[in-house]
């Protein structure tokens, strides 16, 4: 049953009422009758209608007919294939018919939902069904094929989401490569002082996980490393990882710290200290770094730039400094990849009316985190830019660079809670007066609104108004020497000028500056805002349109720590699911190149949105990777020689469908 024959195959047509969704506009009985009368010369041997084809009874009708009438093709005229193609294909399979010989025609989304004229709608339904009937003759039996899954996993990004994912998979007994671009894992969470709403010390809850990740026998930690190339497909990815030269011999280094103590070159630490503190040219980002080995920043190291110094080498007790060390490239194979690359912060200099960068005592939220952190540049003292003076009044501004069509349209989710946390810390450490300037208070998760209540109790003054400007131009004597926050207190309806000593800007979260490049490397797309795009925003937030690549954490959009951890765990569960199945089944709808026709012109090579077309030099032909091909049809359309055909979208099928659509009904 089911192979193309020179006479018309036996086709069954089923017209669904979809309750009244279709039948109120399309005359379904008429269509049913027309199909058997008009299309029997095209192969239709049975035509039925039913209220709900997708129901079990509806499916049973199809199954029964396949057996009784010896059907070789099934056409179901109903809703969109997105919804029920799988349903009907499975039903056909149960009855012994190859599932790829069953097709759907959408007469709901494409007809009854967009037309009101019944006559026109009924006619259009007929044309569409005729098209499918003609095309389906050229459908072939296809088999899904299985691909084995390599049990290794790659996790890119050593922040809290990546660490969570890595630990889950490792603890289940499978091996993980954890790649991190900075010298230590930990991510942004390692920069914070306290976390909301529990006010847990961030390092205290993070470092045990970091140590676990660093010592777990199933995790290969590759820090100061970046992914440079990815080829392959789900179950079988070939990944090249560049291990940047640390210039430290990890086998000898004990992490004693003498090298960075003796290093004479101080550099502003733009990354970990958010530009607020210094590090040396040889450094570990923070005291609890995992791994403990430092790196030498060769752009700032005196030896690399000028050829002198080498103080670290002189003083190192174990001789682990190695200036000759080179970058290494590690090639690995993994079955699945989890991208947990995290976020960057909005550049507050863009909002020039807040004066960040021009007025010394305007700080960003990350700078404030470093101020309040006990291992930060001021040892946990909240001070002004001079490093000494305690502020007496602090203003915290919400929504900087977020919810703003001039910058980023979206809400960064965590800034309201973060601002409340800052307010609490300021009150606790300095007793200063605190003002918070908000548009809305977004404290919507577990224990969040209770935290807002707590901060209200502590006496923070809330002003509802988006701050217009922060200025040092005083108008009255009492404003001299202060930063003046000018805002409309919208609940009173008056403009206020509030003099403060220190301003903290709650800046928004943004995708990593190279998120698009990373996405391209792995073959996934980013949304218009630049975040990694999930397969389905509601029902599948951690997988992507590319099989085998998963996303987790704030790389997919602004979120707090509990959500990042949940997503890391969810991605890990999905990967474990695949690993345990040992094989993955792939849909056979994909393009293939007829090598006898391909002339090697390579026009298609750069068109593939999934980068799965490759050129065989010595044979001078192009091939499509069947496992990764998503069947989009771009190359099929582009090939000037017509050498590429897509199963399910062959030229024959398309021309036949056009003939059917133009049929005289």
């Amino acid at each position: 049953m089911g192979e193309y024959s020179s006479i018309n195959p036996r086709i069954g047509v089923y017209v669904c009422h979809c309750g009244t969704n279709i039948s109120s506009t399309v005359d379904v009985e008429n269509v049913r009758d027309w199909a058997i009368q008009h299309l029997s010369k095209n192969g239709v041997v049975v035509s039925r209608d039913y209220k709900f084809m997708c129901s079990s009874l509806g499916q049973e009708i199809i199954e029964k007919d396949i057996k009784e009438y010896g059907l070789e093709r099934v056409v179901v005229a109903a809703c969109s294939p997105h919804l029920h193609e799988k349903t009907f294909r499975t039903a056909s399979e149960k009855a012994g018919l190859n599932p790829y010989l069953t097709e759907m025609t959408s007469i709901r989304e494409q007809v009854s939902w967009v037309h009101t004229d019944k006559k026109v709608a009924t006619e259009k339904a007929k044309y569409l069904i005729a098209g499918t009937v003609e095309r389906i003759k050229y459908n072939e039996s296809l088999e899904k094929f299985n691909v084995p899954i390599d049990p290794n996993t790659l996790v890119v990004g050593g922040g809290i989401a990546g660490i969570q994912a890595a630990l889950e998979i490792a603890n289940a007994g499978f091996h993980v490569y954890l790649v991190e671009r900075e010298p230590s894992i930990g991510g942004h969470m390692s920069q914070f002082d306290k976390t909301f709403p529990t006010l847990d010390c961030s390092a205290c809850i993070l470092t045990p996980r970091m140590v676990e990740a660093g010592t777990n026998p199933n995790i290969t930690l590759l820090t100061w490393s970046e992914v440079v190339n990815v080829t392959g497909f789900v179950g079988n990815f070939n990944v090249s990882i560049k291990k940047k030269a640390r210039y430290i011999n990890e086998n000898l280094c004990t992490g004693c710290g003498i090298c960075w103590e003796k290093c004479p070159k101080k550099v502003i630490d733009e990354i970990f200290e958010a530009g607020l503190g210094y590090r040396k040219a040889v450094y570990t980002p923070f005291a609890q770094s995992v791994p403990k080995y430092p790196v030498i920043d060769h752009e700032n190291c005196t030896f690399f730039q000028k050829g002198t110094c080498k103080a670290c080498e002189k003083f190192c007790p174990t001789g682990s400094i190695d200036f000759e060390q080179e970058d290494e490239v590690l090639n690995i194979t993994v079955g699945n990849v989890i991208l947990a690359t995290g976020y960057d912060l909005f550049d507050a200099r863009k909002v020039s009316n807040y004066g960040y960068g021009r007025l010394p005592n305007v700080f960003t939220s990350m700078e404030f985190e470093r101020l309040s952190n006990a291992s930060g540049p001021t040892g946990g003292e909240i001070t002004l830019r001079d490093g000494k003076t305690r502020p007496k009044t602090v203003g915290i501004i919400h929504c900087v660079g977020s919810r703003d069509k001039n910058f980023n349209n979206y809400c960064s989710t965590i800034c309201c809670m973060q601002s409340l946390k800052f307010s609490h810390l300021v009150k606790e450490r300095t007793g200063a007066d605190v003002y918070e300037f908000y548009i809305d208070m977004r404290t919507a998760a577990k224990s969040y609104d209770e935290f807002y209540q707590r901060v209200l109790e502590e006496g923070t003054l809330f002003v509802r108004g988006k701050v217009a400007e922060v200025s040092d131009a005083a108008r009255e004597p009492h404003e001299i020497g202060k930063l003046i926050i000018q805002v409309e207190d919208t609940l009173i309806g008056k403009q206020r000028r509030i003099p403060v000593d220190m301003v903290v800007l709650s800046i928004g979260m943004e995708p990593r500056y190279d998120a698009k490049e990373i996405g391209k490397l792995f073959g996934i797309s980013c949304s218009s805002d630049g975040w990694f795009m999930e397969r389905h925003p509601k029902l599948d937030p951690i997988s992507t349109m590319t099989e085998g690549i998963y996303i987790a954490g704030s790389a997919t959009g602004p979120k707090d720590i509990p959500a990042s951890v949940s997503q890391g765990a969810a991605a890990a569960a999905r990967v474990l699911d695949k690993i345990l199945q040992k094989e993955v089944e792939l849909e056979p709808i994909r393009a293939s190149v007829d090598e006898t026709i391909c002339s090697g012109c390579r026009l298609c090579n750069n068109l593939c949105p999934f980068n799965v077309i490759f050129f065989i030099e010595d044979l001078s032909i192009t091939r499509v990777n069947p496992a990764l091909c998503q069947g989009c049809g771009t190359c099929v359309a582009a090939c000037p020689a017509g050498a590429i055909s897509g199963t399910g979208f062959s030229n024959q099928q398309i021309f036949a469908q056009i003939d059917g659509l133009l049929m005289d009904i």
Partner: protein
Amino acid sequence: MNEYILYPGCSMEGSAKAYNDSLNMIKGILGIKLNEIDDWNCCGATEYVGLNLIPAYSLIARNLALAASQFPANSTVVAPCSACYLNLEKADYYMAERPSLGTKVNEALDAGGLHYTPGSVQIRHLLDVIINDVGLDAIKNKVKKPLSGLRVAPYLGCMVPRPDYQRRWSDFEQPTELDDVLKALGADVIEFPLKTSCCGGHMTQIGPETAYELIRRLVSTALEHKAHIMVTVCPMCQMNLDAYQSEANRYFGTNYHMPIVFFTQLMALAFGKNPSESGFGMELTSAKDALAHISSEVLPNTPNVQNKSEGLPMPSARLRKKPGK
């Protein structure tokens, strides 16, 4: 020689005569040729626009239509006055952004035998043209008598950097264009935080108390920063801060004396013209004492009133280098 279409604006022959005279002095030196639109009419300032949408924009568009018909395609209209510049830019931009407006305005223009297709001319402010087309280096080369010793407060005003639909200016709040030109002339430019704060516009006539307060803020802040003179690009700003300064003083019981002149005047001075040729002497708040500060020696710049504090590092001036790149 760069050629431009000139839209002078009503004030150039009146209250901003100093602007006109000094511009005529320097345009040859800068290599700019300005061809006036024949029979241009008033742009409507902020008065006409507030009455009725289509007549207002038709009034403005007549000028654009004349410019487009009198000169080759895609020429640049230069307006020295900020309000004129903004009105012309807005008319051109809105007629494109909202086609129904464009159609109605053209219907009105048609009654006078004119037509304007939005985008037919480029509209730029005089300062924009001087900085970007002539260039700071060229300006520096023409300086014969650097203005060392003169502490200037660059006051760009509000209508030039905002709303800036064509994004020609560096920043809405703290743009550096005027500062750069003045530095090129050798002046000691202070960091003036209110450089784009409003002077009050026509409020000096219809709501004086509001205007006096705005004038007071500007003048007192400039004095606080120890400026000798304020420099502007807009006739309205100049008139408000110059002519109404005594009114403001009377209202507040203050005794401010802060002269305000046009940037072209300082340019003319720096290029070697004498004060009278550069339009000085017409201002009501005399600039004579301020000009006396100009010395022939190159003096070190006096430190700004506000010191950047020692201690924790400030965010670096350029966008931070991206990590890893």
